[in-house]
Structure formats: structure tokens, C-alpha cells
């Protein structure tokens, strides 16, 4: 339980970077997953999930004030669940990766709802500020920012815990009856997810003028693989 609390707390802190503070990239799955992996005692799984989840969400852009599916939220939730499940069912690791990626997609929807709730709640701070100013009382903006950040962390932390506990209990009932052969799905799922992720991301940089650069990338990648194979 203590590990779950730590993972959810760190996840909630990392989620601040998503929009509320800094935005230095650490909330992205590529960074958040290995961080959680190190804390949860399975850095390799963290890196693996970070790679897959990042590819899925790379093409999603938060344009303007739009509330988009919260890929970072879903990804962090997915990694927390994966770390918990793999510890209990190590024989199903590849299948668990497949399951948590689906769960991450669902989590992105929950994340969008959570962000909307927090943003509605933030309106209260604005109203209180305006009321105080109307009464000619000075306001401490630093305090308002601090409280809003703490509220953000608390809400996300609670949602992560609830989601993880429900899923862990539910899947914990199902997984003991799963044969190890089901891992085959997980192996192919990784290829499929990387394929879909690359397909989605390629739309960000499309156009005939980029052909030469793509060719350079393909040749460079091929050369590295060739060198590795020979070595």
C-alpha cells in the first residue's frame, strides 16, 4: 500500500508539469514512466512503457484552450498499474503491457474529465480574488497559486489511487486463470502500437520536401542496425 501511495503521489506531482507548472517535459510518458519505474523497482518496464505510450500520444497537441484527451494522465495511470500487476503476475508481463495500454487510453478520458473539474474549481479562486479586491483588500497571489497547485495534486492523487485499486482488484481476480501463451498477443501488440504510433506521428511531418531527410533517417537507422548485427 505504501508503494502505491508513493507512486500515485509522484505521478500527481509529475502531472503538474502537464499544464499547471513548469512544462519542462517531465510529465510526458517518455520521462514519467522511467521515473515511476525507478521508484517502483522496475526501471526496464518503465522505459519500455514510456517508449510505447509516448509514441501513441506524440501526435496529440493541446491547441489553445481545448481540453484534449489527457495522454500524460492516462500514461502515468497505466504505468502505476503495470508496475503493480507485473510484480504480482510476472509470467504475464507482455500481456499486462497490452492491457495497460488499453487502460491508458481509457485513463486519458478520465484525465480530461479531471482536468476539466480542476479548471472549473479554479474559477472559485478567481471569484474570491475579485471579491477581495472589490472590498479593497489586498490579495496574496502567491498563496492562490500554491493552493491551486496543492488542490491539483490532491485531486489527481486521489483519482490515480481509486483507478489503480479498482483495476488491480478486478484484474487480480482474472489473471490467475490466464495461460502464459497469452503473452504472444503482447509481443505482437508492441509491434502494432509502434506501427500505429509512427503512422500517427508521420502526419506531423508530411510533405514531399521532407523525402531527403526521411531517406537520411532510414539509411542512418539501417547502418546502425547493420553495424550492430555484424558486431
Amino acid at each position, binding site marked *: 500500500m505504501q508503494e502505491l501511495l508513493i507512486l500515485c503521489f509522484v505521478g500527481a506531482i509529475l502531472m503538474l508539469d502537464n499544464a499547471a507548472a513548469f512544462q519542462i517535459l517531465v510529465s510526458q510518458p517518455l520521462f514519467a514512466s522511467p521515473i515511476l519505474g525507478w521508484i517502483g523497482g522496475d526501471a526496464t518496464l518503465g522505459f519500455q512503457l514510456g517508449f510505447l505510450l509516448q509514441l501513441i500520444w506524440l501526435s496529440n497537441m493541446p*491547441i489553445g484552450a481545448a481540453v484534449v484527451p489527457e495522454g500524460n494522465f492516462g500514461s502515468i495511470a497505466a504505468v502505476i498499474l503495470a508496475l503493480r500487476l507485473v510484480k504480482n503476475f510476472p509470467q504475464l508481463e507482455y500481456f499486462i503491457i497490452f492491457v495497460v495500454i488499453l487502460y491508458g487510453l481509457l485513463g486519458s478520458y478520465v484525465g480530461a474529465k479531471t482536468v476539466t473539474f480542476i479548471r472549473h474549481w479554479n474559477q472559485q479562486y478567481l471569484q474570491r480574488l475579485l471579491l477581495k479586491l472589490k472590498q479593497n483588500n489586498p490579495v496574496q497571489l502567491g498563496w492562490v497559486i500554491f493552493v491551486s497547485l496543492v488542490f491539483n495534486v490532491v485531486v489527481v492523487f486521489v483519482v490515480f489511487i481509486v483507478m489503480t485499486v479498482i483495476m488491480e482488484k478486478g484484474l487480480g481476480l482474472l489473471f490467475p486463470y490466464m495461460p502464459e501463451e497469452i503473452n504472444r498477443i503482447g509481443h505482437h501488440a508492441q509491434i502494432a502500437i509502434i506501427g500505429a504510433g509512427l503512422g500517427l506521428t508521420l502526419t506531423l511531418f508530411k510533405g514531399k520536401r521532407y523525402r531527403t531527410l526521411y531517406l537520411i533517417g532510414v*539509411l542512418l537507422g539501417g547502418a546502425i542496425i547493420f553495424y550492430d548485427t555484424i558486431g
Partner: protein
Amino acid sequence: MTQSDKLEKLSLRDVWAVLWRSFFVQAAWNFKSMISVGFCYALSPIAKKVCKNKEEYIDFLKRHLGFFNAHPYFASYAIGAIARLEQERQLNNKANDETIEKFKNALIGPLGAVGDQCCWAVIRPASLIFGLTGLAFTDNLIWKTGVLLLTLILYNIPHIYIRVQGILDGYRSGFDVYKKIRIDNYQKMIVLFKAVAIIGLGMLVVWNLDQAIRLDWKAILLFTVTMFGAFIMRLKKRMFYTPVLLSMVLAIIVGVL
């Protein structure tokens, strides 16, 4: 003596105080005034300098707690410009409440558009692709961690540059700051990051093809179908969830076969 000579220049301490607070510009984001609370917080060191008494400070906050939105990094251009205009307002009323308000509203569009096009559409995905490529081609956990640190540096150099330059340029330019908020001014950076992204994507395609070849012929087919399928669905129909879910379904079918 020109007007700008009379302005009290921003000290390093002021720039640092504003820069630090600008990292929290979206902390109290809400649907009514968007980033205005964070914007006021970032401006507060300047406000405390400019306002002579409590009443003036309260007036300052009332003026700037109205609707305002911008890209979080590019908001620093508005912060710098408003800092200057507020000082000018105090000095000789060259800038008044109405012009400052109109000016702020006029900045919302360009700040959002340039920020999205520059940071969200190019610099961020390009940096992440750099990181993904690094992870794909390294096996050692230490190397992987090193790649992530490099990615963090690669992304945050332009990020911090935009924030600092925004405050300084905004303060120097005042009303003329709109001349600085043009996508052309970031073209060199965008071209460089696009090149990193595209070369990285090319490398990733080859890497995953190699992984599929090592598995079996079904995996090669699966990779090809999911990549082209997702590309076409995203391009033609702006779909996101469907291609990912379809790829999972295909993975189940291939896994069972």
C-alpha cells in the same frame, strides 16, 4: 531625454522574479479568465515596483484579472510588454487603461498561434522523437537515462530561451512587441528541430521493421498495416483512438493465429 531613458530598467533580480513566476502562469487556469491569475502573479514583482500604495496595487490587479490567454511560454512576451506599459502609464499616461486592455486582447491570437506552431507542433514532438530514437537504439539503462537527460536539455534550451527573450523583448518593445511575435523569427529553430524529428522518424521506422523481421512475417505485415492505416486515418479523418484500438485488435488476431 527620451521616454525610455526615464523608465526604470528591469534589474536581473526583476527578470529572475518574473521568469520564476512565469513557470506558474497556468497554475490557476480557469474557463472564465483563462491564465489571468497566473499572468498577474508573474507581473506582481513589477506591480509592487510600479504601484506607490495599496490602492494602486489593487487597481493594477483589477485591471489584469480580466480575460487573458496565451501560449504558456510565449506569455512572457506579454508579461514583458505589459511591465513596460504599466511603467509608462505611471510616468506620463502615454499608455492608459483602455489602450493596455486593447493591446492585451490583440496579443492573445498571435501569442497562441505562434506558440502552438513553434512549440507544440515542432519543438516538443521533435525533442521527444529524438528521445524515442535514442531509447530504441540503446540497450543499457545508463545510456537510456543519458538519452533522456539529453532530450530534456534539447527541449528546454529553446523553452527557457523563449521565456527569457520574451520578457526582455517585451519590455524593450512595449506596444511594438507584436513585431517580435512572428513565426518567421523562429524559422531557423523550427527547420533544425524538424530535421531532427524527420531523421529520427526515419530511424524509428527502420528499427521497428527490424524488430518485426526478428519476430515473424506476420509481425512485418502487422507493422506495415498499422503504420499506413494509422497514417491514412489520421490524415483523412483526424482519427486518434480508432487507429490505436484497431491496431490492438489486429495484434490480438495475429497473436491468436
